């Protein structure tokens, strides 16, 4: 190189530098692996984003983590697939469209453009040729295709059931979207309504979803635990209690068959079919009166632990099969028809609600489990003893045995031997309700025909397109006759399309496969590529998706496997859940949330000067506490923003964002810049010259050791997502260089 020409600037001009390289990696194709070759392949994936506006520094951290890992892997010779796409359907787009008087598609497209600009500004790279958006018909036609295949196999079905209705959002919610009886989005009290809905039969895979968790060695333990609890397998028994004076028996399911000797009365849901039959004439009026007022309450209200216990004796008796005792049959509203069999064996000594009921109506209490060293007296017990720990008592041949799983199995065997009942496995997991009554989602490809019933749309007619109409606000497809008026594909008479759209979790349950064939119009994805490139080698996302998204994705993978489309059953080999970036959030009682940069001196509202309520919350649009990266990038450059963000702390923990340390990060990069540029000539001249460790002097050895320690540390840190300690190590190496030279 001609050293007399102007050398590199001594000033770290980050703007010029970053402009020069911004499009370089894309143009050189570094992030575009040839999927045909799979030696040293690595499929890296961040959970794809919801395009909801500008990304803040918290979002940024997710992408920067991925970009750092992928770049290091490419340097280590891996073929890295890191695709980007957008989870574009859903409520937020609809709500924003209403707020801004626009159409969800326009709002979404604008946000996607913003995302692309921000990624480019950050230097975060993906295989852009595989970019997809779930609201694109080229994508959602495959949601519809999957729906038809599941329907053929009986895994998609229609059922009338009590559903969660959110009056605020004007839509049905899945169980998982109801938190403590309220809508997770708008906080309205959720009602129960009877509606005919579409379900995916995820319960058909419950046992496999549970068992395969043991294969996921590289998933965080707590995510697996959350899934186990959600699937909620319990071993119990169904037991038959013959009715006195009738041929029928009351069948109950219980997870504690070991407490059967303590069943001193039965409780049926007021709506139970046997109630009318067994109620004796003297009790008919009271029972009917009680039943009609009981069903008026919502399920939520009936399940409240604090609810007053009410009930009515039917006059009928049942026999406890294990001891032949006659026990009275009551009805009460705390037992629901929709759960289990709609009838329970009441064990007041072992269940809190049964205990309260027995106390109120003066029914016998017989303890069957007590802690070692204690003796319970049914008449004087202050509360139920619910633990399965201690010793069995008052339980015939089982008295004296230790309470627990082993003894429970003995009870089940005893019931089975005598024909009184049988062991049963139940799951807490319910089938996945996928119907939504909103516009902005994938239309369900079914037709309702007066003559033929429910008719699937033939595959050749896919996609059923979302009509391009002016946005109607909260109304769904049921308000758009041009959409739903159709001729029956089977018999040709006038019929009506299904006007439900799919839960957007359907979109995100298989997108990681679609990336392989983003533009393929002939198939869902290329199975050979899928079998070669999946499971995803590293999946990164928030812990908030531990149950819903991850469980649905695992279910979809297994269903697709059983459809013959892939040869594996788990989509994600390694999972990393990063924490949130938090920031102070300010709220004025009167004027709502206030952005941090508008807060007046003394933490007061800019409009009324009232003191603000300050909390620490994860950055979000709704709380206006998201910090944009733009200011830091404008003042210090993208590299500094990247460095600072990753230096803040280990990503698995939540961390509070401050900009206090930004100057330190900027200073470090300037130090590196100066060191190299000041010695550029000498360094260039020495390129390629061999190292001779045998000739090292003492101070050489110090640097040599420090260098290798740094390489070792940083390499390991990258593998464990510890970018903060990696940066520290690089700062130390830089200091060592300054000491040396």
């Amino acid at each position, binding site marked *: 190189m001609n050293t007399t020409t102007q050398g590199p600037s001594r000033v770290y001009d980050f703007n010029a530098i970053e402009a020069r390289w911004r499009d370089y990696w894309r143009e050189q194709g570094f992030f575009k692996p040839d999927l045909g070759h799979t030696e040293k392949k690595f499929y890296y994936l961040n959970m794809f984003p919801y395009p909801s506006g500008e990304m803040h520094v918290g979002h940024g951290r997710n992408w920067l983590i991925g970009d750092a890992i992928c*770049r290091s892997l490419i340097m280590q010779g891996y073929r890295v697939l890191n695709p980007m796409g957008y989870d574009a359907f859903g409520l937020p787009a609809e709500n924003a469209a209403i707020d801004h008087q626009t159409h969800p598609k326009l709002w979404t497209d604008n946000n996607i453009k913003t995302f692309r600009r921000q990624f480019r500004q950050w230097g975060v790279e993906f295989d852009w040729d595989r970019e997809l958006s779930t609201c694109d018909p080229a994508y959602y036609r495959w949601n519809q295709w999957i729906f038809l295949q599941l329907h053929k196999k009986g895994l998609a079905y229609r059922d009338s059931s009590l559903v969660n209705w959110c009056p605020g959002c004007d839509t049905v919610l899945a169980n998982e979207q109801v938190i403590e009886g309220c809508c997770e989005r708008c906080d309205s009290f959720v009602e129960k309504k009877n509606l005919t809905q579409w379900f995916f039969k995820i319960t058909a895979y419950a046992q496999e979803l549970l068992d395969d968790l043991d294969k996921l060695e590289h998933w965080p333990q707590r995510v697996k635990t959350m899934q186990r609890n959600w699937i909620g397998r319990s071993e119990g028994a169904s037991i038959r209690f013959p009715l006195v004076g009738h041929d029928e028996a009351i069948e109950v399911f219980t997870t504690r068959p070991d407490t059967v000797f303590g069943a001193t009365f039965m409780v049926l849901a007021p709506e139970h079919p046997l109630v009318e039959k067994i109620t004796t004439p003297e009790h008919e009026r009271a029972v009917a009166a009680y039943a009609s007022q009981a069903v008026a309450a919502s399920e939520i209200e009936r399940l409240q632990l604090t609810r007053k216990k009410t009930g009515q004796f039917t006059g009928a008796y049942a026999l406890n099969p294990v001891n032949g005792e006659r026990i009275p049959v009551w009805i009460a509203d705390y037992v629901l028809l929709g759960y289990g069999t709609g009838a329970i064996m009441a064990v007041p000594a072992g269940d809190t609600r049964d205990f309260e009921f027995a106390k109120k109506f003066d029914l016998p209490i017989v303890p069957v489990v007590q802690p070692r060293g204690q003796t319970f007296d049914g008449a004087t017990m202050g509360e139920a003893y619910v633990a399965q720990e201690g010793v069995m008592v008052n339980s015939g041949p089982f008295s004296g045995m230790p309470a627990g799983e082993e003894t429970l199995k003995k009870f089940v065997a005893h019931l089975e031997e005598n024909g009184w009942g049988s062991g049963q496995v139940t799951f807490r997991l319910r089938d996945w309700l996928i119907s939504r009554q909103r516009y902005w989602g994938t239309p369900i490809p079914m037709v309702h025909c007066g003559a033929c019933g429910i008719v699937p749309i033939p595959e050749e007619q896919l996609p059923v397109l979302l009509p391009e109409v002016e946005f109607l606000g909260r109304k769904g497809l049921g308000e758009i006759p041009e959409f739903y008026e159709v001729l029956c594909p089977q018999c040709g008479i006038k019929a009506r399309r299904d006007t439900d759209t799919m839960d957007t979790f359907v979109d995100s349950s298989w997108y990681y496969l679609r990336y392989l064939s983003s533009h393929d119009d002939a198939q869902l994805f290329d199975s050979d590529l899928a079998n070669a490139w999946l499971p995803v080698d590293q999946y990164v996302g928030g812990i908030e998706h531990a149950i819903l998204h991850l469980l649905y994705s695992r279910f979809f993978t297994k269903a697709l496997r059983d459809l013959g489309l892939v040869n594996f059953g788990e989509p994600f080999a390694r999972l990393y859940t990063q924490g949130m970036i938090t920031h102070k959030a300010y709220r004025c009682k009167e004027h709502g949330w206030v952005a941090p940069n508008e807060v007046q001196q003394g933490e007061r509202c800019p409009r009324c000067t009232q003191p603000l309520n300050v909390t620490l919350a994860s950055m979000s649009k709704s709380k206006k506490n998201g910090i944009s990266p733009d200011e830091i990038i404008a003042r210090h450059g993208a590299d500094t923003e990247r460095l600072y963000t990753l230096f803040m702390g280990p990503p698995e923990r939540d961390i509070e964002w401050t900009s206090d340390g930004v100057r330190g990060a900027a200073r470090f990069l300037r130090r590196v810049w100066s060191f190299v540029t000041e010695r550029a000539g000498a*360094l260039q001249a020495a390129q390629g010259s061999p190292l001779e460790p045998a000739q090292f002097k*003492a101070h050489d*050895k110090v640097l040599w050791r420090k260098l290798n320690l740094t390489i070792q540390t940083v390499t390991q840190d990258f593998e464990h997502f510890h970018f903060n300690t990696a940066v520290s190590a690089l700062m130390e190496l830089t200091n060592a260089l300054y000491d040396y030279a």
Partner: protein
Amino acid sequence: MLLNRAVESLILLLSPICPFIGEELWQTVLSHPDAVLAAGWPTFDPSALQQDEQELVVQINGVVRERMSVPSALANDRQALERQALALQGIQRRLDGRAPQKVIVVPGKLVNLVV
């Protein structure tokens, strides 16, 4: 040479986090023909971390003036450590013929020559 290797490693290790400055230093300032992403990941030499030597600082009147590597075998041999410290060229130059009044040795850490 070593400085070159160390600087290049620093740039390569920093680049996944700071890719812009990485490419600029690598390609523009140091005129490498390849991109950082094509340059490979720094290799680590485990023998560099072997502890068959220890590093001590040599002080004169409590101020660090030199560093020396000492074979681990001699780690606790105070006389050998003192001898080696006094033999360093840089120390000899500074002492300029003076003999230390007192020598403080902390094995594994330092030799302090009090004059």
